[in-house]
């Protein structure tokens, strides 16, 4: 129960006017980016990150995480009212959300979406509250070999479990790790891969890359679409909210199932997108009346939204406890931690208690405040869509440029950002995944350090990664996951050749 006391302390840290104000600002900005077409969680956080450089770490993370919650809430608005998913994980919400809006039940659908997002996040935050301190205290015993094994596990699970072509994930990851190594080598002080350029001496800044990859490239991609839109305007009355809430207990199984799926996929790098579809499909499969799905059934809104938000929130668990982000947005937040001078990883829970518990408390508070905020201000946010994209696009470009420049006061970084924008655009179109690329960029130097330290400890013997039960298990698991598609196929072909009776028993 130590966690509860620390959590209360976290709330005490938060309850100042300044922090609450930042929270509101973050939420409003977040809903704003969530509603805008082509912008979402990772883009919003990446673009607005520079605003926080002059803040203290706690205020900064509170504001950034609120931008993230806001973006998660905002995605639902466009999906339901306009049939335009603001985010890939809102796609499943459109299946039943938009039909509901067409039937004049937009307010119910929105209330259902916001409420279930809230429930999903809440379950995941509770998981973080009790699990993260435990994992991090366990991880405090980790040495360099264990850390490298955990990094390896993260990378391998992306390759093995990702839905993209395997070689494209490998390309994304190797490229990210390589780019992270450009500049001065931290161990020997020697220059690597700079080719005599003084600008490359500082290395490729992770945040500059992210602003280009997620901000600029998203603008380029969005411009390809026809950006005209038509949709419903809606306002939510208190009576609708209460009516939907009164029915909530009926759907507890759907909510519970989606929360569990979301938490699980959030911690493993499956992501919110997979979680939302899985939540929707399972709700449909377990329903007595499957045909009514897709025609405006409220469960079809509950299920994907709960799962997506549980997953988006749970992705912060490995980031806080181990310093390994579970999603693209978590990776960007992790980059932020480093800018504010914090060293992500298990030591965070020991050295920066105020920060960690302030952040966890802000997840609770941010979700409550966010729920009230979106429920009461939906009409305003929906009307943001009246602003033509031709006005929004150049403003986003300017914000990106300001962000990229502000990080190191370097013009070179602005050009780098533009380059990464083009790379992100092309990669997205030929389906080279950006999430592992981002992850590799942010973890690259730490993974390399862990590897080299392990090698120095063992005198160059690879057996160090199987030296004890713990590290051996993680390393073996990593390799199993890397070849998981092959193993899966092998198992499938074996079970196919066994007689059906044996299969039924198994």
């Amino acid at each position: 129960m130590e966690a509860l006391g620390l959590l209360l302390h976290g709330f005490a840290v938060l309850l100042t006017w300044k922090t609450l104000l930042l929270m509101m600002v973050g939420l409003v900005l977040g809903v704003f980016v969530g509603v805008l077409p082509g912008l979402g969680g990772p883009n919003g956080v990446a673009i607005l990150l520079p605003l926080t450089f002059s803040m203290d770490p706690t205020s900064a993370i509170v504001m950034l995480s609120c931008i993230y919650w806001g973006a998660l809430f905002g995605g639902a608005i466009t999906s339901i009212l306009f049939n335009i998913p603001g985010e890939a994980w809102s796609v499943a919400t459109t299946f039943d959300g938009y039909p509901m809006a067409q039937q004049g039940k937009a307010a119910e659908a929105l209330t259902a979406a916001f409420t279930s997002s809230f429930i999903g996040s809440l379950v995941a935050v509770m998981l973080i509250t009790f699990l993260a301190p435990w994992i991090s205290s366990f991880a405090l015993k980790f040495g360099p070999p264990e850390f490298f094994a955990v990094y390896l596990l993260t990378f391998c699970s992306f390759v093995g479990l990702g839905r993209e072509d395997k070689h494209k994930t490998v390309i994304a990851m190797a490229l990210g790790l390589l780019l992270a190594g450009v500049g001065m080598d931290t161990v020997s002080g020697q220059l690597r891969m700079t080719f005599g350029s003084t600008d490359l001496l500082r290395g490729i800044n992770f945040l500059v890359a992210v602003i280009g990859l997620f901000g600029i490239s998203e603008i380029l991609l969005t411009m390809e679409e026809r950006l005209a839109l038509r949709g419903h305007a809606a306002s939510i009355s208190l009576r609708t909210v209460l009516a939907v809430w009164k029915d909530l207990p009926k759907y507890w199984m759907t909510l519970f199932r989606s929360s569990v799926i979301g938490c699980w996929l959030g911690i493993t790098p499956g992501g919110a997108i997979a979680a939302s579809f899985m939540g929707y499909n399972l709700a449909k499969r377990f329903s007595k009346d499957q045909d009514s799905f897709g025609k405006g059934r409220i469960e079809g809104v509950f299920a994907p939204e709960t799962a997506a938000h549980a997953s988006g929130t749970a992705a912060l668990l490995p980031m806080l406890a181990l310093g390994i982000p579970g999603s693209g947005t978590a990776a960007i937040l992790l980059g932020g931690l480093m800018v504010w001078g914090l060293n992500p990883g298990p030591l965070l829970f020991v050295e920066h208690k105020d920060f960690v518990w302030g952040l966890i408390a802000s997840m609770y508070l941010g979700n409550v405040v966010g729920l009230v905020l979106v429920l009461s201000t939906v009409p305003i946010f929906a009307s943001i869509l009246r602003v033509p994209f031709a006005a929004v696009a150049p403003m986003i470009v300017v914000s990106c440029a300001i962000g990229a420049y502000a990080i190191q006061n370097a013009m070179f970084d602005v050009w780098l950002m533009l380059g990464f924008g083009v790379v992100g655009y092309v990669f997205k179109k030929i389906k080279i995944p950006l999430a592992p690329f981002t992850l590799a960029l942010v973890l690259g130097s730490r993974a390399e350090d862990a590897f080299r330290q392990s090698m120095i400890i063992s005198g160059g013997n690879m057996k160090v990664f199987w030296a004890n039960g713990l590290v051996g298990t993680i390393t073996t698991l990593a390799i199993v996951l890397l070849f998981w598609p092959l193993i899966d196929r092998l198992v499938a072909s074996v079970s196919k050749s066994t007689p059906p009776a044996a299969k039924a028993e198994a």
Partner: protein
Amino acid sequence: MSNAELEIAVDDPTAPEENSPAVTSNRTVDVGVSLLLLGLAVLLAWDNWRTGASWDSTGPEPGYFPFYLSVILGGASLYGIGAAFLSSKEARETFVTRAQLRRVMAVFVPTLLFCMAMQFLGIYVASFLLIAGFMRVVGKIAIWKSLLTAFLFSAVMFVTFDVVFDVIMPKGPLEAAFGY
């Protein structure tokens, strides 16, 4: 029972046409990108080999880790070239149509000019020009609206970053004239 009114509608006057011909297929781009990545892998592998990619008395040399990554990148790119050549699915996928490319260039070229201009004019003047020009030309929005929006946005950015948050941005002759 569709009694809800459609109340929000936004037009897109310069939207790309639906039936525009494809410029190139995903396969062509995939092969091109894989070739570029292969080239990059060879270049980086060579550079890291030069830095030292073996072992010395203290452990792995600085080039060791990146050298093997370059090898992995090169291998995956080679595989990618083969896979892309054999993929008939990618050959059918359009990378970009001509109309889409025109629109993408309509953002990319101004952005490029904006980045160049910000070195001489300062970021605030450059962003004023970018926003006003873009709204007018691409969005076909009334001139006074474009100018006003661009001015307000640049002014807010200036106050937020230069005055309140003390973040130093590139400035040009206009700011200098006002003593900043």
